[in-house]
């Protein structure tokens, strides 16, 4: 059963310059114990999607519509009181920057205890024991002493471990991880990721992993959603997306991955930058940057449709499948050819 089912989620912000449609009709679902990766460039609506699910967007200038069913209940229509009992309890979130996500004036112990006491009717003593247990679980050395330290006494990786401990302390069903490894160095990234997967097995948590790092997705995700400019470009299992991608944007992302076996002077990149969501391009939003652009792309918005060989694999592109298969072949061979 799906823990979270998002359908047609739309979130827009009112700004001084006009309405920004940051998320424009996004749908996906996550199964218990599985990991969904959401990938895309900066500013394509990944984080806003997460914040909308959590109800953490600024209420004064944000409008969300659609559905986000968590264990059957729509989070978007829930009262803020009800939502609060879920937040940090059954749905938890890890943020991008561990350096600023912990309050500098409280000990980490206090911040962990707060998370427990908000949702569990336990004494401070028990909450502290629970906090200690989690700190050990996320691999903080000498946790019994470090629990009374302040965030500034921890390194970035250690702080992110604390954040993970805080998120998992009430054994949530769903964990939203918003680029949890972006601010960390590569070695620490690998540690944090393996920590998350092992904790996921232990707690059977569903994880939504937001990232722009396809390497991270390949490593831990079961399913992938590729987002571009507030819309889903392609959606499918991790195998499908990596072996038979059907959207030129995904090709671009995959093509720009650094490869150990290729000897290139410069990394391949997608030309241009993501469009302003204040005034998105007509038709397919990717068309100004797409090397395969056709006339239809400039006027008709492509629908997100299943590909013929797999009903779970969805993509939104006008290009015919025959050309796509050829291009995928070229993409895979092309990089191989460069390597040899």
């Amino acid at each position, binding site marked *: 059963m799906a823990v979270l089912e998002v359908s047609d989620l739309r979130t827009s912000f009112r700004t001084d310059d006009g309405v920004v449609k940051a998320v424009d009709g996004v749908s996906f679902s996550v199964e218990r114990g599985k990991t969904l990766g959401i990938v895309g460039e900066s500013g394509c609506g990944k984080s806003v999607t997460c914040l909308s699910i959590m109800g953490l967007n600024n209420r004064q200038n944000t409008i969300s519509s659609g559905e986000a069913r968590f264990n059957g209940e729509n989070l978007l229509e829930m009262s803020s009181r009800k939502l609060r009992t879920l937040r940090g309890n059954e749905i938890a979130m890890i943020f991008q920057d561990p350096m*600023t*996500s912990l*309050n500098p004036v409280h000990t980490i112990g206090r911040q962990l205890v*707060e998370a427990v006491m908000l949702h569990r009717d336990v004494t401070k003593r028990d909450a502290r024991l629970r906090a200690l247990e989690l700190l050990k679980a996320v691999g903080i050395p000498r946790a019994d002493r470090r629990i009374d330290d302040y965030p*500034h006494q921890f390194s970035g990786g250690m702080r992110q471990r604390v954040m993970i401990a805080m998120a998992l302390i009430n054994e949530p069903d769903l964990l939203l991880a918003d680029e949890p490894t972006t601010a960390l160095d590569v070695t620490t990234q690998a540690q944090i990721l393996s920590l998350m997967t092992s904790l996921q097995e232990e707690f059977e948590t569903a994880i939504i992993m937001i990232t722009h790092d396809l390497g991270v997705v390949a490593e831990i995700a079961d399913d992938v959603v590729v987002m571009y400019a507030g819309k889903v470009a392609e959606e499918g299992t991790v195998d499908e997306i990596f072996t038979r991608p059907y959207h030129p944007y995904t090709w671009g992302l995959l093509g720009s991955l650094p490869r150990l076996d290729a000897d290139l002077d410069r990394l391949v990149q997608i030309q241009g930058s993501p469009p302003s969501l204040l005034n998105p391009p007509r038709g397919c939003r990717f068309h100004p940057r797409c090397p395969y652009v056709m006339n239809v792309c400039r006027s008709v918005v492509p629908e997100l449709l299943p590909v013929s060989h797999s009903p779970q694999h969805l993509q939104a592109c006008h290009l015919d499948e025959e050309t796509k298969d050829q291009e995928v072949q070229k993409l895979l061979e092309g990089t191989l050819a460069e390597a040899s």
Partner: protein
Amino acid sequence: MVLFLAVTVVTYVIFYVTPSDPARLAAGQGATPEDVQRVAERLHLDEPVWEQYGRFLWQLVGEQSLGESFVNRQDVNDIVLRAAPVTGALVFGGAIFWLTLSIPIGIISALRPRSLIDRAGMVFVLIGLSAHPVWIGLIFAYFIGYKLELTPITGYADFFNPSQEHGGPVQWAYHMILPWSTFAILFAALYVRLIRANVMETMNEDFVRTARAKGAPESQVIRSHVLRNSMLPIVTILGMDIALALGGAIFTESIYSLPGLGRQVLQSYENFDLPVIQGIVVFSTLCIIVFNLIVDLLYAVVDPRIRLT
């Protein structure tokens, strides 16, 4: 220490280059040139400025004495010690006034931006910032003191030694109400803005979002994650403001004829009474140095990042 030397030297030099003849003033109107000469000798005004300064330092370090007034030969230590408590009472009382006023207004207007309270607060800020204390003082004195006869307009009641007319804590507070309010308004306005800006900034911090993500109710988010963090910079500024104001709240003291440092410095300046001015300068410099230290220590208590290990 360096600060202290610099400040006193500057006071001496400025005094020296000002075209004035303190000896003639001190000797009185009918004095002959010989009298003036004698007075100058006695006050060591005939010596070069660096010798005068050396003597001043020597006295200060050796005898902890600030010297004697040129005008009435009173001990400057006494003058300063008599005036300081008045200014102290004004400043600390005023600080309590302005904090009790600005903290709630600042926080509420930060939490409800563009609300009625926020707008009313901003009007208050505008008035407080634009209105000169003298003007506010006169308005207060006229309406509250004179028309409504609610409070005394001038004078100071000693807290500890009741004289025949007035004295004791009640009279003291009664006499200070108007000066406190007048003095506090400018700062209250400044602090409302300061606190509002700080709270709003803290509300956008990542750790506040973390607290919300934990499922904390808004009141708890504000209480334990916003307020303390946003008060950190206020502590520094408060310390500096109090220290500066202790050097004499000249306007407020003048309006309400409070015998504090500000009024004293004004009087002494009119009489070119260098030792008294220098004494007050020394005192306020000390205040600033001491308060800086206090602020630093306090900061270490409030902000764990600065704690010394």
